[in-house]
């Protein structure tokens, strides 16, 4: 090949780079086109991942091996089961602890503008922590007091300037489900597009808010197994012992339940659609940029062909060009996307994360598309006699 077979290939400047760097303005335009395509794809992927990762925030941060929920529950907090079943579960061989978990929406009055909205309440027994969130577990003593709560600092601003008031030392009461409650501490969990925010309260305060009947109904039971216990055996035993209305799920199954539910919601479908659109438009832009670039250099390639370069050698030059453009365009693309992700995170309180896998996927797609469009662009050169191209 042009640069591979000859001796000391490292010292010869790649022709593709000479061509690209010769016209700086053109290169800049091509790179911004590719960056834009990347940003477009990343934003759509970001929206989608925000939607799905946000929905599983709470189930994912539960600290347990097996989870009991009502069999008809389509997501965490959907349906309840009787608290007494938790004690039966605790007696099943292999179960070390069985703890209650309440997860319910409550009305919330924004203290700044007196507007009523809603928040999601996480209620636990302070003596029996079930969340793998250190900030919550460290402050459990604070929630034991009457009408006190921990507030999620990542909740939406529409709930009021709660965090600011708390850090400023103000002790304004907030109306939750008709009761005046006060913030005793904060934690960071993050909401999703369907939830404005979270508070953590004790099971006793939950009873005060919702009454004895509801406090007797659990949204989930969080079970830990004894060391060495086989999770499959215990789950089978739980299903056998407990009434038919209760199902036992592993942690993975609990998270999947949540994901599957939201993916089937109209919003989930819209996000999937947006992702596909982003991909299609991005691919078209990459193709356009490379095609026109190669097309502009076609007569130069024809000259090289006329002085003895083979199609394979020229194809390699074009591939190099596509690779350089893909790599150089990707870098500002991913940097801008990261910036936009953090802006979006701050605006919505929804965690928008760049996953390494997703980043690599988009990069390899840019590369493959680039190389493919380059190959299509030089097809004319391959088929024609060089004399026809001048």
């Amino acid at each position: 090949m042009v640069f591979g077979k000859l001796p000391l290939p490292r010292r010869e400047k790649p022709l593709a780079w000479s061509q690209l760097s010769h016209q700086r303005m053109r290169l800049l335009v091509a790179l911004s086109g590719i960056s834009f395509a990347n940003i477009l794809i990343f934003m759509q992927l970001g929206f989608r991942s925000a939607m799905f990762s946000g929905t599983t925030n709470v189930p994912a941060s539960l600290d347990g091996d097996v989870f009991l929920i009502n069999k008809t529950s389509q997501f965490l907090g959907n349906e309840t089961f009787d608290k007494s079943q938790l004690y039966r579960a605790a007696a099943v061989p292999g179960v070390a602890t069985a703890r209650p978990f309440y997860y319910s929406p409550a009305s919330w009055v924004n203290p700044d503008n007196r507007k009523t909205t809603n928040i999601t309440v996480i209620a636990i027994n302070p003596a029996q922590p079930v969340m793998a969130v250190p900030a919550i577990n460290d402050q459990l003593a604070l929630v034991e007091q009457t009408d006190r709560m921990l507030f999620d600092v990542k909740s939406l601003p529409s709930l009021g300037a709660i965090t600011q008031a708390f850090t400023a030392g103000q002790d304004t009461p907030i109306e939750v489900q008709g009761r005046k409650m006060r913030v005793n501490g904060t934690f960071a969990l993050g909401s999703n597009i369907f939830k404005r925010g979270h508070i953590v309260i004790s099971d006793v305060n939950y009873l005060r808010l919702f009454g004895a009947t509801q406090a007797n109904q659990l949204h989930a039971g969080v079970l830990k197994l004894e060391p060495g216990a086989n999770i499959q055996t215990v789950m089978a035993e739980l299903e056998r012992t407990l009434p038919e209305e209760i199902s036992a799920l592993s942690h993975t199954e609990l998270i999947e339940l949540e994901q599957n539910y939201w993916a089937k919601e109209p919003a989930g479908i819209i996000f999937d659609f947006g992702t596909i659109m982003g991909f299609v438009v991005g691919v078209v832009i990459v193709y356009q940029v490379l095609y026109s670039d190669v097309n502009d250099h076609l007569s130069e390639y024809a000259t090289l062909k006329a002085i003895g370069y083979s199609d394979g050698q020229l194809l390699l030059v074009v591939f190099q060009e596509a690779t350089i453009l893909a790599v150089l365009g990707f870098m500002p693309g991913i940097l801008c996307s990261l910036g936009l992700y953090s802006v979006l995170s701050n605006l919505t309180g929804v965690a928008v994360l760049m996953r390494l896998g997703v980043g690599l996927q988009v990069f390899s797609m840019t590369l493959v598309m680039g190389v493919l469009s380059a190959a299509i662009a030089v097809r004319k050169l391959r088929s024609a006699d060089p004399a026809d191209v001048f």
Partner: protein
Amino acid sequence: MEPVVNIEGLHHAFGKGSLAKPVLIDINLAIQPGEIVILTGPSGSGKTTLLSLMGGLRSAQQGSLRILGQELTGAGKKQLVELRSRIGYIFQAHNLLDCLTAQENVRMALRLQPGLSYDDRTTAATAMLDAVGLGHRVNYRPDNLSGGQKQRVAIARALVTQPKLILADEPTAALDSQSGREVVQLMQRLAQEQNCTILLVTHDNRILDIAHRIIHMEDGRLVRTESPTAAVV
């Protein structure tokens, strides 16, 4: 000694089927090593087509076309590519790569020569640019060179691999009379030094005297051959 160019009964047509328009009709021509031949004639007479066939830039259709011992009628892609690297082709519009310096343009031809190190290529390219009088312009890009200088870089690129055959398509067309003259004399001198054969297509009456033989072409046929003195008169 085998002729460098040996053409027998060559026909060529553009278009297909009933639309085919013949451009070359029954061409017979032999050029001996070291000869400088000028091919001239009105535009549309088929000169450039003949030249591009000889350079392997077009596939030959009918008849026999032997260049440097390689039969081009029915030759495969690989043979054509290989032949092109053994011919020095000089284009009407210099066809340098705008993004490369004079030296890099000349190197492009050398990169195809096996067994040359990077330093060998530098030495050869610089020496060749020196020989065409551009030793002080090796790092200039075509944009910063005059028309005559560009054409001299193109000559350097064509000659640096020491080909046995140079094909030049109106190399003086874009030049004023003085630089045109200089360019052609340069080709003549270098060709003599390297003992290579030149076939030059031109309209330019001012340069006819450098040739050993002048061939006139009309309507796709070679019509007559003259010696330069007769043509100049």
